[in-house]
């Protein structure tokens, strides 16, 4: 992969498009930071698995999708949901367990969903979404809809049987699904090098006849371009595709995990390699934005988030009458 601080090549893109990527990444970052505070403060129930540092993966991939395309996500799914177009309100309300949340308070952090925006409930069983995404893509192929499924999972998922079974079936049936491994290098506290002998996940995919590629996952443009090619290939009937996005989980696996198992030099190196800072620098150097303008983007997002928190606190909770509804369709 590229050296961590490698310059992002934005030359062929318009300012508006790039600022959109930037804003979406900042939105995810500040959503996650705000949620972490609310959780630690005790305001918000439940548990959280966060994606600070991995924003370019969600944003780069989802920007390459059409609104009619679908994603599957994981227990670490807030970023994917925001990038696929779910609103801060519907997600925050869900985190507060409100009846007005995206799953009516029955899903929670690990099951963000909006069937009108192309996101089935996040699947919190590791690799559980891989065969499901293959099945979604099979449906698209059988119905000839031209849609594509994008399946997010982490490096931890590649040891699961469901991963290999799902990827293999997608491959033998040539279905339009892009498998996206966000290799943040840790499955909970275990480093990826301790769970596989191969040097890259991409090379393991080649054994299924899928051309796997390793990409700098903290370069949002590199992710977008790779995802774009993968999605185009799938839509043209040349699926499935696979992307290994190299990134880093700078927050704990969940809740109050202090990440003592991550070596300090490694953490510091990856903190330097911040996907938002990297794009911001490129925008400033290209004259697309000033530091002040980028700060203003962040401040606006923060203010909106604070407003959303106030709304979330005032949302109605489900009543006991809701306890047994929606068990069956």
């Amino acid at each position: 992969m590229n050296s961590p601080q490698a310059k992002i090549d934005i030359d062929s893109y318009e300012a508006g498009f790039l600022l959109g990527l930037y804003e979406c990444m900042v939105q995810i970052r500040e959503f996650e930071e705000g949620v972490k505070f609310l959780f630690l403060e005790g305001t918000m129930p439940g548990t959280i698995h966060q994606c600070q540092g991995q924003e370019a993966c969600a944003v780069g991939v989802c920007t390459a999708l059409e609104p009619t395309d679908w994603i599957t996500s994981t227990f670490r799914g807030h970023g994917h949901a925001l990038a696929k177009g779910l609103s801060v309100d519907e997600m925050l309300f869900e985190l507060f367990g409100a009846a007005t949340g995206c799953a009516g308070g029955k899903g929670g952090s690990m099951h963000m969903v909006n069937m009108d925006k192309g996101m089935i409930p996040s699947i919190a069983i590791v690799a559980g979404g891989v065969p499901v995404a293959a099945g979604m893509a099979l449906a698209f192929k059988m119905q000839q809809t031209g849609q594509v499924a994008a399946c997010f999972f982490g490096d931890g998922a590649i040891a699961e049987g469901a991963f290999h079974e799902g990827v293999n079936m997608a491959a033998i049936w040539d279905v339009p699904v892009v498998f996206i491994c966000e290799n943040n290098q840790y499955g909970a506290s275990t480093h990826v090098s301790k769970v596989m002998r191969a040097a890259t996940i991409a090379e393991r995919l080649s054994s299924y006849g899928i051309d796997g590629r390793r990409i700098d996952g903290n370069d949002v443009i590199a992710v977008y371009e790779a995802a774009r090619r993968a999605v185009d290939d799938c839509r043209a009937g040349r699926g499935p595709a696979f992307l290994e996005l190299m990134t880093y989980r700078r927050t704990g696996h969940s809740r109050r995990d202090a990440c003592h198992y991550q070596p300090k030099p490694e953490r510091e190196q990856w903190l330097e390699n911040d996907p938002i800072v990297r794009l911001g620098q490129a925008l400033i150097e290209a004259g697309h934005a000033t530091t002040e303008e980028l700060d203003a983007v962040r401040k606006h997002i923060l203010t909106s988030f604070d407003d959303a928190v106030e709304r979330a606190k005032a949302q109605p909770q489900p009543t006991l009458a809701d306890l047994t509804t929606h068990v069956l369709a």
Partner: protein
Amino acid sequence: MTTTTTPKKVTIAEALRGAIAEEMERDPRVFCLGEDIAVPGGWGGAFTVTLGLEERFPDRMINTPIAELGFFGVGVGAALMGMRPIVDVQYGDFLFLAMDQIVNNAAKMCYMSGGQCKVPLVMRAPVGATGRGSQHAQNLERYFIGVPGLKVVAVSTAYDARGILKAAVRDDNPVLIFEHKLLYGSKGARAESGAIDASSEIPEEDYVLPLDQAAIRRHGDDVTIVGWLLTAHLAQQAADRLAVDGVQAEVIDARSLSPIDFATICASVEKTGRLVIVEEGPKTGGVGAEIAAGVTERLGDRARASIRRVASADIPVPFTPVLENAYVPDVPRIMAAALDMVKG
């Protein structure tokens, strides 16, 4: 106006095959997914149910690798996107491999999405001890009846198989259909020794059966005997012989295992005052335990006698015929339990 045609006698395997074909004709979203279901010159699944369908529906009979976890997940994904998959395993025992997709995804998607998702997935699984040892023999019903979001049914006649399969395909929820290897009426190389005739005369007209109702197979006032799959047939045989002794048993084929049709069962037990539950599978933690508890809760003192369970020993399914025969409930044991209650 529909024309009435002469009913024809078919086996369960034939009834299922016909029902699947008709549902695929009726609705282009219906397709089959499973092992060895679409191989020309092949078996039509483990028990001939899908035999020949690949010629009629070459694009909708999807033959899978041996990967139950994977293809049940594929079924869930396709169902979420509006298809109506019929997924089957060769032996029910293999459902354990697919458990995560069935329990965590298929059954929960609707609830954990606040009602946004539906998973119209039909799952078919053959069960029953048939000379294959411990791992191709279990009755899996017990593991699924306590999974909210899942409908669980068991078919013991060809007439039911056709109506229930069609209802399951048209239902918006995941439906798990249990079938018994000794009841299929599979022919040729896939025929089973010790098979019981479960064929029915069925009309050619379309019909569906409810997925939540038991069926009363025989009326009687002295004792209620509940079974399903193979044991529904054994219960009827026992009832016929009890009648010789002057004991009139009411036989109920539970048919719907989740939900359990307590209205039908309790109405019968209120009348007879006695209940024998016959289950193939270990007694401990079985479906029979749930039926017994539910009836007791609902009827309280109105059931005059204690409830008896005739079930298998708490052991894995043994291979050798002498032990396997002792594992499966039989007519003498059912009769003994009924007579003990009636005379005691």
